[in-house]
């Protein structure tokens, strides 16, 4: 007997003007972890949304346990044992762990909840007190609650969309242990991630999509990183990190004694023209607080900022922009983009007052500028009027970058510049960073991805518990040294 849980055959989905999926085949076996890879816009989300009953397919068949099924709504999909755990978790933060797990089918007797919840959590080999309020949990614990919810509903097919995006290393290990325990219980897991390392660690097979087409399905143990990348981008990516040799110029910005009581203490560093300075630290190390204070978002208790040698006063983002400091926020959806607005109004958002003299916007100038950045940063959008909401993550991130460039700044604070985006978009962004350096700009980069920090930074400053704990040149820095300094 076939041990296939799920088969998706010749799935086709059209959106107005776009063929999102073209005859894509995908299958999942019992107890298998099947990775789904592809750049943003490749069709992964569309495929998953069809499986989840969010979208209806135009053509093709979905077969579950040998039975042909049609999904008209998410509840149809759920009743067939499919559960999707999205990147943005859907927990009810004011309720307890037990209540979250049983939401929708609460056991009648109150006492049973905690006991049953313990059983469900026990199946995943984790120990969280079911009485705790979910709002107090960590991201990983919330994720566990969501998985438990799915298990309780007897999910046989679990879809995880970028589950490790917001997790640290320890939590990732814990998540993988949970996934392995689910495998033993014959649950099939569809695992979506941009992190190839994880794909190799946890998946049994990998399917790669590109431009809405199936490129291929590989057995993980028999494939290689390079092969998957080639499949994803459709070309050989010789140099993932296009680092160039840019000579450094004068000192652009100096930070002296920057202090926020109880959070960061006595931070000193500088950035030169043409230089990328990486700030590396673990979550909660204070690296965010440093750049937020620098850009005038958060108040600082002490500290002097000098630009080209002269002290400046920065108390608001507007003042920072006036001194040619641009800021890329850590979360493009929460802090970077006006999602309901067009591509062009997002690009010019931090530069509105400069779009023509007087009270009115010079429309021609605005369109010219936006078009220029769309070309330069290689943003793929149907038009300048398109809502950024409808673009892929990589293109959205590029718009955030374009917005920064439009301000005409020469000091850039880039927070996780390539977070959650595909390889191709990453390289485009690195290229732009290098272009900026060649033009004499200085960049302060914060990134949680060590390879990125190592490859792109000219100098790396490690932060731990609000203090600078080390400084390394590009040549000196190694993964071990950075981690050691960041965990002092």
């Amino acid at each position, binding site marked *: 007997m076939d041990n296939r849980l799920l088969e998706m055959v010749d799935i086709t989905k059209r959106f107005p003007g776009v063929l999102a999926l073209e005859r894509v085949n995908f299958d999942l076996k019992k107890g298998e972890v099947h990775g789904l890879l592809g750049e943003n816009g490749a069709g992964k989300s569309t495929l998953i949304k069809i499986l989840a009953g969010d979208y209806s397919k135009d053509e093709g068949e979905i077969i579950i346990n040998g039975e042909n099924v049609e999904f008209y709504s998410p509840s149809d999909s759920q009743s067939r044992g499919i559960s999707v755990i999205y990147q943005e978790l859907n927990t009810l933060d004011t309720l307890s762990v037990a209540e979250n797990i049983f939401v929708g089918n609460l056991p009648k007797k109150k006492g049973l909840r905690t006991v049953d919840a313990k059983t469900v959590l026990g199946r995943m080999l984790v120990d969280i007190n079911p009485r705790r309020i979910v709002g107090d949990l960590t991201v990983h614990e919330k994720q566990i609650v969501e998985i438990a919810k799915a298990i309780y509903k007897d999910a046989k097919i679990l879809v995880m969309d970028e589950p490790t995006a917001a997790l640290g290393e320890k939590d990732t290990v814990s998540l993988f242990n949970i996934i392995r325990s689910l495998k033993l219980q014959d649950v099939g897991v569809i695992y979506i991630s941009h992190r190839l390392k994880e794909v190799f660690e946890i998946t049994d097979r990998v399917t790669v999509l590109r431009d809405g087409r199936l490129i291929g399905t590989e057995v993980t143990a028999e494939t290689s990183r390079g092969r998957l990348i080639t499949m994803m981008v459709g070309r050989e990516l010789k140099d993932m990190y296009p680092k160039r040799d840019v000579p450094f110029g004068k000192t652009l910005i100096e930070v002296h004694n920057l202090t926020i009581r109880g959070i960061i203490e006595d931070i000193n560093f500088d950035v030169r023209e043409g230089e990328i300075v990486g700030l590396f630290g673990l979550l909660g190390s204070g690296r965010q607080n440093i750049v937020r204070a620098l850009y005038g978002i958060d108040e600082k208790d002490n500290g002097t900022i000098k630009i080209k040698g002269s002290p400046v006063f920065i108390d608001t983002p507007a003042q*920072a922009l006036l001194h040619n400091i641009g800021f890329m926020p850590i979360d493009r959806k*929460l802090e970077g983009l*006006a999602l309901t607005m067009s591509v*062009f109004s997002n690009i010019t958002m931090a530069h*509105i007052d400069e779009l023509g003299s007087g009270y009115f916007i010079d429309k021609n100038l605005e369109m010219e500028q936006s078009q220029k950045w769309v070309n330069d940063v290689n943003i793929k959008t149907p038009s300048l009027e398109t809502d950024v909401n409808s673009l892929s993550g990589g293109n959205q991130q590029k718009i955030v970058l374009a917005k920064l460039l439009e301000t005409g700044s020469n000091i850039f604070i880039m927070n996780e510049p390539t977070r959650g985006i595909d390889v191709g978009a990453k390289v485009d962004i690195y290229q732009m960073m290098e272009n900026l350096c060649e033009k004499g700009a200085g960049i302060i980069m914060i990134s949680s991805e060590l390879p990125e920090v190592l490859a792109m930074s000219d100098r790396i400053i490690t932060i731990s518990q609000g203090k600078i704990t080390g400084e390394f040149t590009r040549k000196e820095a190694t993964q071990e040294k950075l981690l050691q300094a960041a965990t002092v």
Partner: protein
Amino acid sequence: MAKNITAESNGERQKTRLSSTTILFMFLVVMVASFAVLSKDFYSVYNLSSMLTNISFSGIVAGTLTLVMIMGGLDISIGGNIALTSCLVAYLYNLENPPHIALIILIGLLLGTAIGAFNGFIITRLDLNPIITTLGTMAMTRGMGYVLTQSRSILILENVVGFIGRGSIAKIPFPLILFGVIYTILAVVMARSKFGRKIYCIGSNQEAARLSGINVRRVKFITYLVSGIAASLSGLILTGQTAVGMPQHANGSELDVITAVLMGGTSLAGGKGSVLGTLAGVLILGVLYNGFTMIGFRYVHIRVFQGAILILVVSLYEVRDRKRF
């Protein structure tokens, strides 16, 4: 590409929005045509002009409320503001030694400015929710109207105030001129100006707007201020039209005004909407009341229609938005 952008858009209206507003205006034309067939009196210059005059006072506040709502805010103190302005103006006029009428009108407008400034201050500096803030101001202003007039209506037979409410220039009613001028200004501000763009940005994502160097507090404060000024101007028009100042004026009007704005396609969540859409919403409500009255329906029936049409129109927007996916 740039050619596609109409005066109203500021680029924020997608093609779907554009056609939504067009559909609203088509709906309006159909309504006008049907009423014209059903009632001989409806399609007369006299009736249409008096209808337009009647909607001017609520139309003006609907225009400025559009700005507030696109910004993601709300101002429900407009009704109380209108009433208190009318009471104060009539009260001052009936003093034993009344100030000059120009001064009285100025004080009326300053009152609205002060109410708007108060709302703006509380919302931007204390970071209070705009619904709560203006709910408070609504009760305060309405109550102060009763206190000031000792719950009576005060007659104000005065030429200048009368002109604001009932006068006309070249046969065009003065309130209608004000209505037209204000809508033109608001539409241009939202479509073309830097200030209008900032309102859209704040409504769409306030934090992103702040990090983009937009002075969020200032833009918000000014917008609430303008809403307050518009309300007191409406108060003057209503006082002129009715020749009385009374605390019951414009009772519940804030909800009708919000109805017009929502029907016009402005989202309660902010970031989307247009002044032109609100104009369509205001006109549809005006024609609805006038037309159904002309063919013999009573006010209470028309309230039911108003509610039904609001839900119908807004659900059409929802369907349209979802269809894009």
